[in-house]
C-alpha cells in the first residue's frame, strides 16, 4: 500500500521530465495544482487502463534491440534527453519552420552536452567512439520519437559528414576538422544531389578541375536539397563533404571538404514550405570557382569517392529506417493512449470496435516487423565493409512505408484530433513521407534490390 502513496510524486517528477517549469511542479507538490500541470496530468492519466498486467515480450527482443549494456545506456540517455529537451520544442519549431540551433549544439560534447554529434568518431578526435550501426539506429530511433525533423539535421551532421569523414579522411584531416564537429561548434552536412541528379546520382555535373599552380581544385556547380545547407537563411553552414566530378568516366567522382565562408560558395536559396521535416533547414548551394587545396581538403583517393558514397549510403539508410521506427513507435503510443480514453457509443473507450482493433494491432505487428528487420541487420553490419546494399535498401524501403502507414492509422484512430498539430501524429505522418524520398527514393531501392536479387540466378534465398 505504501508503494502507491508516492504516485503523486511520480506524476510530479514526470511533469518535470516533460518540460513543465519547476515552479508549477513545486506549487503542485505544495498542494496547489497549476493549470498547465493539470493538463499534463489529465493527458497522462488517460494512459491508464483497467488491465493490471504489464506488457510482456520475450527477452530475445530486448537482446535484439539493445545487444550490450552500452547500447542500453545509450538508449536510456538519448531517450531521457529527448523527453526533456526535444519534446517541449518540437511543435513550435516545426510549425514555424525554425531550426533550433541552441538545442542542436547541446548534442555536442561541449558544456557537458549529450555528446553524440561524433557518435561513430573515435574518441581521440573528440567523438563518442560508438562505431556500430546498432548505436546509430538507437540514437535515430529515440530522437525521432520526439522530433524526426531535428533528427534529420543530426543525421546530416553526424552520419553524412562526421561518420563519412572519419571513415574516409586522413589522420591529419580527422585531427584538423573533427573536434569542432563533435563538440557542436560547427554545423555540417553533405552535398550529393543536384537539381537534375537525384536517384541518378552518378549523373551529377558539379565539376572540380585541378589547378596546378595552386595545387588545388576549383569547384563549379549546384547542389540541391542540402540538409543543414544554411543555418541563418542567407549564409551556408560551417562545413560540407562535397561530391564532384574529377574525370571523364561516369564513376570519376571525388570527395572534398568545403568550408563555409570560402569565396564563391553561397546559398542559392533556402528551401521553404516543405511538407514535413520543417525544423530542419534545407538549401540549394552554389559553387562558383570555389577553390580548395588538395593536401588538406581532398578526402580519400582522387576519383575514388564512389565507394565512400555507396558505403556511407548504407549507414544513412539504416539511420533513416531507424527514424521510421521511432516515428512508428510514437504514433502507436499516441493511438493506443487515445483509443483507451475516448468514450463512444456508450462504451468507455474505443477498444471494443473492430475497426480500431485492426488499426492498432496491424500497426503494432508492422512496427515490430520493421524494428526486428532493422536491428537484425544493424547488429551484424560492419561499417567498414560495403556491398550490404540489399538489406540497407530493404530496411529503409520497408520501414519508411511502415511509418507512413502507422502514422496514417494513428490519425484515423484519433479522428479530428489526429488531424491537428497539437496531437503530434499529423506531424509524424508528414515527416514520414520524406523517408520514402531522402537518402534514396523508394524507386532507387527497388532498382538496387531487384538487381541484387537477380544475382541469385535461381539459387534459393537461404
Amino acid at each position, binding site marked *: 500500500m*505504501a508503494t502507491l502513496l508516492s504516485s503523486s510524486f511520480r506524476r510530479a517528477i514526470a511533469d518535470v521530465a516533460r518540460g513543465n517549469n519547476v515552479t508549477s511542479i513545486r506549487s503542485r507538490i505544495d498542494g496547489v495544482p497549476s493549470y498547465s500541470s493539470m493538463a499534463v496530468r489529465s493527458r497522462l492519466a488517460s494512459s491508464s487502463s483497467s488491465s*493490471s498486467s504489464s506488457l510482456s515480450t520475450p527477452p530475445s527482443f530486448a537482446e535484439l534491440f539493445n545487444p550490450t549494456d552500452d547500447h542500453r545506456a545509450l538508449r536510456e540517455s538519448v531517450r531521457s534527453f529527448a523527453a526533456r529537451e526535444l519534446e517541449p520544442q518540437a511543435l513550435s519549431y516545426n510549425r514555424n519552420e525554425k531550426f533550433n540551433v541552441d538545442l542542436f549544439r547541446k548534442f555536442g560534447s561541449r558544456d557537458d*552536452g549529450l*555528446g553524440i554529434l561524433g557518435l561513430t568518431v573515435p574518441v581521440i578526435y573528440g567523438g563518442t567512439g560508438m562505431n556500430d550501426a546498432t548505436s546509430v539506429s538507437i540514437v535515430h530511433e529515440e530522437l525521432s520519437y520526439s522530433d524526426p525533423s531535428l533528427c534529420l539535421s543530426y543525421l546530416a551532421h553526424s552520419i553524412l559528414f562526421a561518420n563519412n569523414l572519419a571513415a574516409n579522411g586522413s589522420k591529419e584531416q580527422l585531427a584538423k576538422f573533427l573536434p569542432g564537429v563533435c563538440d557542436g561548434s560547427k554545423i555540417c552536412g553533405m552535398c550529393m544531389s543536384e537539381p537534375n541528379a537525384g536517384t541518378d546520382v552518378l549523373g551529377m555535373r558539379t565539376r572540380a578541375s585541378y589547378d596546378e599552380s595552386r595545387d588545388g581544385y576549383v569547384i563549379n556547380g549546384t547542389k540541391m536539397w542540402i540538409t543543414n545547407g544554411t543555418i541563418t537563411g542567407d549564409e551556408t553552414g560551417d562545413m560540407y563533404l562535397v561530391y564532384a566530378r574529377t574525370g571523364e568516366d561516369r564513376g570519376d567522382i571525388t570527395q572534398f571538404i568545403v568550408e563555409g565562408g570560402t569565396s564563391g560558395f553561397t546559398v542559392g536559396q533556402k528551401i521553404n514550405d516543405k511538407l514535413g521535416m520543417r525544423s530542419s533547414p534545407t538549401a540549394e548551394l552554389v559553387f562558383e570557382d570555389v577553390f580548395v587545396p588538395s593536401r588538406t581538403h581532398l578526402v580519400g583517393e582522387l576519383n575514388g569517392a564512389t565507394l565512400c558514397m555507396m558505403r556511407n549510403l548504407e549507414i544513412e539508410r539504416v539511420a533513416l529506417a531507424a527514424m521510421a521506427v521511432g516515428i512508428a513507435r510514437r504514433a502507436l503510443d499516441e493511438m493506443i493512449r487515445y483509443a483507451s480514453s475516448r468514450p463512444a457509443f456508450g462504451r468507455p473507450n474505443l477498444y471494443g470496435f473492430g475497426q480500431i482493433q485492426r488499426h492498432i494491432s496491424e500497426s503494432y505487428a508492422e512496427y515490430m516487423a520493421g524494428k526486428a528487420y532493422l536491428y537484425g541487420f544493424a547488429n551484424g553490419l560492419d561499417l567498414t565493409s560495403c556491398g550490404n546494399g540489399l538489406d540497407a535498401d530493404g530496411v529503409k524501403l520497408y520501414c519508411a512505408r511502415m511509418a507512413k502507414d502507422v502514422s496514417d492509422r494513428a490519425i484515423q484512430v484519433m479522428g479530428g484530433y489526429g488531424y491537428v498539430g497539437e496531437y503530434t501524429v499529423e506531424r509524424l505522418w508528414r515527416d514520414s513521407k520524406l523517408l520514402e524520398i531522402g537518402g534514396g527514393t523508394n524507386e532507387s531501392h527497388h532498382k538496387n534490390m531487384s538487381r541484387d536479387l537477380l544475382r541469385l540466378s535461381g539459387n534459393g534465398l537461404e
Partner: protein
Amino acid sequence: MKILVPIKRVIDYAIKIRVDPTKGARGVQLSNVKMSMNPFCEIAIEEAIRLKEKTKTSAEVVAVSIGPKQCTETLRTALAMGADRGIHIETKADVRGDYVDMQPWGIATLLKGVVEREGGVDLVLLGKQSIDSDCGQTGTLLAGLLNAPQATFASKVDRGDDGSFTVERETDSGTEVIKIKPTTLPAIITCDLRLNTPRYPTMPNIMKAKKKPVETISLEAMVQELGLNLDEVLSRKNEVVEVYEPPPRKEGEMVGDVMELLAKLKEKGLVA
C-alpha cells in the same frame, strides 16, 4: 573530503505501478518494469558532486547500493554523473527492497558498517526517502546508529572551511538554518526535492564511467565481514500485510436542479 552516497534502485518515476492482486504483499510488479535511481538519491549524488567540485582540497564521492545484480546499472549512472567509485552489496534476486523484505533498519545497519569499513567519511548524503516505500527512515536511523549529527530535508547545503556544514531546511513555519559542527563522525544529511536539479549523464561520461571501479560483494559476505547478523539485517520490523491498487473512481450521479442536489447532499449527510 570523503562523501558517501547510498542510492536505491526503484521503479522508474514515470511508470504506472501495476499490482497483481493474487500476490498479496508482493503484488507490486517488478518484472518487465523500467527501474531507475530513486529521484531523491539522484539529488543526493548531484549535491555530492557539486560539493566535490566546489571544494579546494581533494574529494571523493563513493556511491553505495544494496540490492540485486541490476543495481550495478544504477551505480554506473551515479558514476557517469560524476561519482568516483561504487560499492554494490548484492542481494539474491528474490529479495525485495521495497519494504516487503529489506527495511530501513537493516539498510541503516549495513550502511553504518560501510561507513566504518570505509573510514574517514566526512559526510553521508541520502535522499530523504525512496519513492517505492516512502519510509524516509534510513538517514535518521543511520545517524542514530552512528550517534552522528544530522540534518534532514535539506534544501541548501554549504560546507565551511572548518569542515562544518550549513544546511537550510524548509519547514512549515519558515526556513530553518542548521550548522553541523565538525566532529570525528560523519555528518548525515538527507536531501529534499528543492536542493538541486540533477544533471543527466552524457555519453562521453557514461563511457568514461565504465573504467571507474565498482566493488561488488554479496550481502552474506559483507554481513560476515562487518560482524553483523544476517537475520538481524534481513529481519522485518514491520510486516506488509496487503498491497492493492487505489479503487477506481465511481461514476458520478446526474441531478436535475439545485434543489435535487441539495436534497442528495443532505441525504448523504454532507451538508446540514
